[in-house]
């Protein structure tokens, strides 16, 4: 038996006994299942010797935030990763019934599935046959007329491009290709019905932005339904969304933002075939500058906009751009240790599992998935190949090895699911050529 499965067996035994005794179980499990990270982190929270006497709402909340982080960082000697506790948390989360207060997630059923299943797969936890059936059922309940009217965020709701994105990724995670194959042509027509001169409406009467474009591009690439007609005008529009700061906004002339910047740059890797083409389609230097500027000297983690607080979900929205930017520039550009410290020390719930946005907040599915995805990015080593035969540059991502002491799966920086799932899907929809 491998160490891992031994640990799992032991965990199960302990769970069983403790449930039997009706005692609180987590402290014991914590002790036995965390992965201790070897003490070679060369990063520490740091305050540059620059005096800043100005005060405003921004500086006050920044100072308070630093105080909280200083407590977090001083308490912990070595980083630990509580993988088994997270797996536990995710399985419970997937199979729980939620009280009525959770109605706030009622338009996000496909998202909940994606966040939880993607996290589980990243943690290399097996998705059982029974669970796969339930994932399929849930997603199917959101597919409207075989995709003719799209995919919605919940049964009997209206089609929504972002809900569809989460749904398609969930189906790929459980290898449900037949269903995908059945609906893909209808989805194409649905996208065409949402097409504007330069993008895609998120839904009927909705607006087009970098996020809706990214979602359509991801789905249509994975299912091999992209056409020139579908893509027309999109790249020109995306270029306009890059701001004077360097990042991308939702639409032209709006503030650069981590989420939209991720959608923007990822879209270029779908639309283009070479690193050089990406580099010359946008102001690459200013994008690079803006992206590295998201990391805080004291925090280690990333924020999503200039002068905003750090938040763990940007571990992926900005973190996802690390392999993209670094492989295009062919250089190491970010400080991964800082990010790892922020996620593991400040955002990890080591008692009940899951991740938070920042200290003081509650665990949620969204931040759990994007914190884990960020960890995956910095634990793995990526290469980006330019393959003539590939439909787009994004398919050229591969994992070399990396240290990966957390033993975490390898997320695809563009498609936001593990690389091996992208490859399987590609094989199904494009064949081996």
């Amino acid at each position, binding site marked *: 038996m491998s160490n891992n499965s031994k640990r799992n067996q032991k965990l199960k035994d302990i769970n069983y006994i403790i449930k039997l005794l009706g005692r609180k179980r987590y402290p014991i499990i914590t002790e036995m299942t965390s992965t201790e990270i070897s003490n070679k982190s060369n990063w520490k929270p740091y305050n540059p010797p620059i005096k800043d006497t100005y005060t*405003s709402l921004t500086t006050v909340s920044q100072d308070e935030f630093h105080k909280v982080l200083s407590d977090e960082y001083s308490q912990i000697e070595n980083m630990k990763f509580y993988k088994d506790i997270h797996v536990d948390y995710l399985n419970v989360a*997937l199979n729980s019934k939620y009280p009525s207060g959770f109605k*706030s997630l*009622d*338009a996000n059923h496909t998202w909940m599935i994606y966040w939880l299943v993607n996290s589980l797969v990243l943690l290399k936890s097996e998705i059982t046959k029974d669970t796969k059936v339930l994932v399929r059922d849930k997603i199917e309940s959101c597919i409207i007329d075989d995709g003719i009217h799209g995919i919605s965020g919940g049964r*009997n709701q209206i089609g929504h491009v972002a809900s569809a994105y989460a749904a398609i990724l969930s189906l790929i995670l459980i290898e449900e290709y037949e269903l995908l194959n059945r609906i893909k042509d209808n989805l194409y027509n649905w996208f065409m019905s949402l097409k504007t001169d330069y993008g895609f409406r998120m839904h009927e*009467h909705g607006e087009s932005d970098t996020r809706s474009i990214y979602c359509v591009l991801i789905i249509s690439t994975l299912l091999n339904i992209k056409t020139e007609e579908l893509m027309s005008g999109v790249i020109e529009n995306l270029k306009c969304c890059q701001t004077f700061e360097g990042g991308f906004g939702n639409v032209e002339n709006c503030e650069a933002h981590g989420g939209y910047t991720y959608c923007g740059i990822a879209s270029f890797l779908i639309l283009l075939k070479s690193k050089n083409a990406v580099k010359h389609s946008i102001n690459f230097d200013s994008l690079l500058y803006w992206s*590295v500027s998201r990391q805080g000297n004291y925090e280690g983690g990333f924020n999503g906009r200039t002068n905003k607080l750090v938040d763990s979900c940007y571990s992926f929205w900005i973190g996802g751009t690390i392999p993209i930017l670094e492989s295009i520039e062919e250089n190491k550009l970010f400080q991964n240790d*800082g990010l790892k410290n922020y996620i593991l020390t400040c955002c990890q719930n080591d008692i009940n599992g899951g991740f938070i946005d920042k200290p003081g907040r509650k665990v949620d599915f969204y931040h759990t998935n994007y914190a884990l995805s960020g960890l995956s990015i910095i634990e793995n080593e990526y290469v980006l190949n330019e393959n003539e035969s590939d439909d787009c540059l994004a398919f050229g991502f591969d994992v070399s090895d990396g240290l990966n002491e957390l033993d975490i799966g390898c997320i695809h920086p563009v498609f936001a699911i593990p690389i091996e799932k992208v490859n399987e899907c590609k094989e199904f929809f494009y064949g081996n050529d």
Partner: protein
Amino acid sequence: MDFDYSDIVPVDLNTETPQLCQIIYSDEYKLIMGKLLSLMKQKEYSLRALNLTSLGIEQLASHYTTWIYRYDIINNLPNFDYYSELDWCEQIALDNEKNYQIWNYRQLIIEKIGFDNYDPIREYPIMEAMLDGDNKNHHVWSFRKWLVEKFNMFESEKEVEFVSNMIELDVKNNSAWCHRFFLRFNNEKNVKSEIEYVKEKIELCPQNASTWNYLIGIFEKFDLEITELKEFCFKFLNLDDDKVSSSFALETLAKIYIIEDDKESAIRMYTLLKEKYDPIRCNYWNFKISTIEN
């Protein structure tokens, strides 16, 4: 006005079991949303349907389906009062700070009224109230940008005054700076005065990425020589004493030295950033150094 909904059979809301992530809805929610979605399926566009969407949005303002349906309803109601709809929207916005469906909806309503018939000043109080609660609310600033664009408010003194006040309150409010960039540089004539304006704000608070990005942004947009900023940068550093009040001044100086082909000084700036004033970006500064050396 009371409406009769007794004839409507509510649709199921994710009730099948077993089900992953099942929400156990309250009876009230089940009834309202069940009947709302049922009416929507039948494409009923009536006052009672409209009322039901109000109740639905009270339950969950982020339910995009309810907003889409509501818009379809008002499109089909005769003599609908769009202004009272805007009033209603405002209350919902105030109760749901982070909601964004509402701003898209508001755009649709204003479009419906017609840009020629609508006075954009009517939007000021609600935007002000919202930004009062969160001065960086991305949705509200996006809406504001849309408004300026649609109503061609680039020359509006009120708008400039508003954004100046926001900056006055918090010079690190990046959203305000981005809005200002959009507002002021529709036209080249403001370049000089804006450079003076932002320089003043940099002196007020030198360690501020928002203002430096704004300054450098102007130089890039209008193809100006940043070497002109050399003297200005030296206001924020005394290298003999190793005193620096802005890491951004160091960066800008490095760029200037590169243009002047003074490689040694540029590398010295980047090394200071790497080792002392901005070490989190050490890999980036190393990369910058390597591009100079090659």
